[in-house]
């Protein structure tokens, strides 16, 4: 696999992706890791300012170089999704509340 600064080869088929906690939240990391747990055994650990995600391919023939680069993009999407949610999450709640309120109550919104 190539030498990507953000993907470390830890030996024995285990790879480590380190992400700055300043940029990535716990929820985004967990949501992205969830997508990859079918192909990899995943362990999440803390390293000071970084969160470390260890991946070990379930299928030893699996080349993690592509998969783990995809992980970096997925976790980025998840973080953007959460950042956006901070902007308009309250609107989502209003939409659901309004959609499920009795019709007689809707004029009062």
């Amino acid at each position, binding site marked *: 696999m190539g030498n990507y600064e953000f993907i470390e080869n830890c030996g024995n088929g285990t790879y480590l992706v380190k992400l700055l906690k300043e940029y990535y939240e716990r929820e985004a990391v967990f*949501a992205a890791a969830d997508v990859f747990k079918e192909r990899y055994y995943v362990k999440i650990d803390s390293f000071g300012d970084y969160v470390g995600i260890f991946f070990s391919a379930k299928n030893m023939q699996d080349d993690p170089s592509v998969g783990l680069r995809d992980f970096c993009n997925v976790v980025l999407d998840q973080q953007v*999704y959460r950042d956006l949610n901070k902007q*308009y999450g309250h609107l989502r709640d209003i*939409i659901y509340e*309004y959609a499920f309120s009795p019709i007689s109550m809707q004029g009062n919104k």
Partner: protein
Amino acid sequence: MPLLPFTFHKVKSGKILVVNQGGEYVFLTRKDFDALLNTNRRHLPNDLLHMLKSKQLVYTDDEDLSLNLLATKLRTRKSFLSNFTSLHMMVLTTRCNCSCDYCHASSSGTETQNADMTLCVAKASVDLIFQSPSNDIKIEFQGGEPLLNWDVLKQTVLYAEELNKTHNNRCKGFVICTNLMLMDDEKLHFCKDHNIYISTSLDGPKCLHDLHRKARNGESTYNMFIEKLYETRAVLGEDSCNALLTITKDHLDDLRNIIDEYVERSFNNIFLRAINPYGYAVENENIVGYPIEDFITSYKDALNYIIQLNKRGVYFVESYAKLLLQRILTPFPTGFVDLQSPAGAGIAGVIYDYNGDVYPADEGRMLARMGDKRFFMGDVFTNSYDDLFNGKLIHELIYNSCVETLPSCASCLYQIYCGADPIRYYVESGNIIGQRSGSNFCKKNKAIFDYIFELLEEADEEVLNVFWSWITNRKLKAIKFENN
């Protein structure tokens, strides 16, 4: 110009597909998407801004109006919930005159004792059915082969019709799920007189149909099926019969031939569904099963073939694609028990077993037959309607099957169009929340959504016309005429 809630994902073409709470979608270039996320959205072209506004992805001055529009769309999409349980399935017998090796119902031989629903159980079931608040009750007779318990079927229809008179005619019809082998003139005329529809099974041309759908004595069923199909149509009408296909390993590479057979036999739709992991399909997995990836490849090829048929003037619908297209292209509700949020088990459909036991779905009943009564709701004699439909199990299923709150589904692009199947998850992973992102259920649905959106992005006018003809139940000619 503030943003409204949406999810997004990069698609194969490199564009970003953006979907909002109302199910509206748009494909954006990376540049436009970046501009949308930028606090200063003035770099977006005017026409794009108008489009984003009209689809409620951004709003200008009236926040309330935009939120109301989105809430109305969401409310419309979820309106199937207010109807509550409309599909009531009654297992009239577990006996069957066929021995299909993929039978999810694990049916028993025709001579099996104590395998039929008694009239007493049937009437108690119908009494419960009419306590449902639904104004669109449908009673479906299943088996085994329900025609083996014809007298009880007949009496049940008459009893339901009697109750219907004092219940505002809320029961809108009956369906018999039958292999047709025992259908005869007397039964057909009863069906005609009582507005009963037929749901049957056709697995393709003779060689494929007979491969897994054999009579108990091992003989072919195809010729008799075709004969009975035409007899049925002659009495009940051309549109009285729908057929279901079960796709085994042997059918995967022959879907085009199977589609041809459906067209040849004057069916105007086919439901391409992967085999379910229940009943004999589990025991015979090495004979009938396949990796879900193989199904997805065959599905795409078959869908393309069906689109081509439509372009050539043959009105023929792939029912699953139609269902998903209805959800993507319209705000209207499409209750579908196996793909709803919350799941349809119990609140959209329910099944009454031959002995009076009640389950939220056929799969729950099958598990019970395999020794696991995890989804047993109660029975028609000892439990009230409230016990059954407002009980702990139904609450648990609803609570744990809202894709809006399930891990990985909560941020999925397709969440608003998709649903959950907790009983399926339980079978596959041992719990009702399941490992959805790696499950066959998720892989299949994501792949089909991906492909349908790929076709929508290509925006071939003829393909879009075909899709609209399916959604609006009109021939392609009518859609083209309207467009001109």
